[in-house]
């Protein structure tokens, strides 16, 4: 056991070496890890044969047992294992990547034995990441914060895809703990903000890929590029094969849910998304994709009607997530600073009004957004916080919303009419 009240990264231990002779070495040392051979996770088999189910059970039990063993290790031994055992990191990463999400295509109900072991692995994985995100476990067991930041970053114990996976897998019921974990990770290692900045263009690229695959274009960087000569040959949502359409909608559903789960758990990341222009890209993406996909799902001939219903539900779920993500971004980057009375309130108010104005041409998006988060409510808040706001401008915005509702032919919810009238 390593000595107490000294950060783990500075502790030394004396213990028998391979030859049996006592030796002193740093408490965090590769020779102190156990050869445990963690196996990688694979998800429960869908329609699996009894042999496949047995194999899953065996594998998942190994993982649950090994992670429980890991969690019971003393602080120093736990960290030796975490830092130096690559099989453990591959096991954890395989779980994050492959564990079934609540949104995945509904498989056959799991047998009680499969469900039990899956739950045991799910909990043990979360607790392992929780322990890995904790630099001070008790007054005796802790790291020098800066060294902790280096260890988790340099050894890829956490990275941006892993953090996103953690949010989508565990954020629904454990958001407070997860928030603390991610906040601590970003606080102790601000390089994760740089990594997030580096990741965001790839996330935007995912949206572009979806547009390209459906032969669509929208405003943004991609729209500025000259169209390729073969661009016309690109299949559309109506003409591509159904399997491909289903894949794109599953991808959209997963992407929008993951982004929303991350921002909902860790709103401090909103400013990074904001600075990469998500508030202008999301509405135009929505406007380009949603009507096209809706038309395809309605009009195409589905032999399997349950697939048609499933795709409709997934598209509609994705719509909700885009709308909610836009609201989160607006709330945390523009509205909240105004409500908190921060300096430059006028700049934030101007930005908020500009965003609302930029939504006006995206009529479908605007109506769906207004249905969930009435613009009239935000404008009313704005007017209360900043009474000098230009009334002509706010009236113009509210009329624009009214006109968007009229153009879509949808009926506005009753409560919204009242709040719009009050504004």
């Amino acid at each position, binding site marked *: 056991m390593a000595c107490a009240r000294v950060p783990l990264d500075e502790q030394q231990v004396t213990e028998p070496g391979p030859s049996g002779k006592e030796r002193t070495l740093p408490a965090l040392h590769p020779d102190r890890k156990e050869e445990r051979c963690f196996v990688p996770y694979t998800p429960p088999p869908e329609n699996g044969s009894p042999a496949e189910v047995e194999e899953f059970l065996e594998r998942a039990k190994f993982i649950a047992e090994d992670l429980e063993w890991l969690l019971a290790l003393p602080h120093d031994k736990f960290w030796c294992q975490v830092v130096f055992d690559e099989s453990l990191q591959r096991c954890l990463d395989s779980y994050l990547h492959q564990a079934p999400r609540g949104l995945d295509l509904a498989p056959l109900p799991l047998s009680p034995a499969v469900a039990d072991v899956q739950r045991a692995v799910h909990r043990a994985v979360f607790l392992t990441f929780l322990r890995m995100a904790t630099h001070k476990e008790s007054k005796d067991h802790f790291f020098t914060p800066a060294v902790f930041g280096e260890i988790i970053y340099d050894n890829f114990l956490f990275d941006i895809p892993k953090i996103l996976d953690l949010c989508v897998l565990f954020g629904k019921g454990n958001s407070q703990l997860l928030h603390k974990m991610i906040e601590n990770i970003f606080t102790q290692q601000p390089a994760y903000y740089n990594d997030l900045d580096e990741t965001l263009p790839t996330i935007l690229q995912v949206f572009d890929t979806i547009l390209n695959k459906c032969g669509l274009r929208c405003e943004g960087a991609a729209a500025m590029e000259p169209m390729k000569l073969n661009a016309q040959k690109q299949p559309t949502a109506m003409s591509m094969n159904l399997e491909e359409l289903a894949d794109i909608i599953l991808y959209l559903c997963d992407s929008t849910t993951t982004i929303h789960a991350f921002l909902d758990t860790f709103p401090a990341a909103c400013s990074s998304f904001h600075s990469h222009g998500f508030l202008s890209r999301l509405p135009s993406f929505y406007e380009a994709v949603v009507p096209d996909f809706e038309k395809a799902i309605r009009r195409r001939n589905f032999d399997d009607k349950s697939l048609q219903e499933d795709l409709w539900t997934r598209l509609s779920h994705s*719509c909700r997530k885009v709308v909610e993500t836009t609201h989160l971004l607006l709330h945390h980057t523009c509205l909240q600073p105004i409500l908190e009375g921060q300096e430059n309130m006028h700049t934030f108010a101007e930005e908020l009004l500009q965003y609302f104005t930029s939504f006006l041409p995206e009529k479908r998006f605007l109506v769906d957004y207004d249905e969930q988060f009435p613009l009239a409510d935000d404008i009313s808040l704005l007017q209360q916080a900043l009474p000098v706001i230009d009334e002509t401008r706010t009236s113009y915005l509210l009329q624009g919303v009214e006109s968007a509702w009229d153009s879509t032919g949808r009926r506005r919810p009753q409560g919204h009419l009242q709040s719009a009238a009050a504004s």
Partner: protein
Amino acid sequence: MAPPRLTGALRSFSTVSKKEDPTRQLYDLKTKRLKRQELFAREGLTWQKIVHFCTEHWGKAEQQAASQELKSLLQAAKQIVGTEHGQEVIECAAVFLFETFQNKDHVGTEETRAIKQMFGPFPSSAAEASCACVARLVAPIGDSKVEDFIKTQSSRHNPQQGSSFGRNIAFSYDLYTLDPLEDLQDSGLCDERVELDF
């Protein structure tokens, strides 16, 4: 096949994740079983201790019978681990079988699973035989004495579970589920289908 995932794309196309070496060995179930056997062998309880414990508690007149039962248990263990293994592995398997069956009167699902998890596929007759041997070995000794013996000898029964990280943390198994903006009923999709059917 795994559904397409945003984080899969980020792992592949961004520069913020560790790039996996495809040539690196991933542990399979067979390797894992061998590792478990190795770890089990280090857990404290040995075949010699079991032999000593049994012979000590069996009467002098029954020593030969006890010795015969222990031999049969080793034989069953040999059938379970396979004949290619040495005496050390066979004795280790016999210890595992003794621990597994010391308070069981038949081979249940749990026991079958535990043996399979440790040694892989095995002949069920060998498990039946080892269960019967253990039952005969422990019968004259008494359950509590056997349990005390195993508890004091095996580190597996004295883990530091009391201090396991996170044991008091309330964990929720809730997952994000589909939450559509528009109900299917309100979407008109169902009505449209009726029209199409006509």
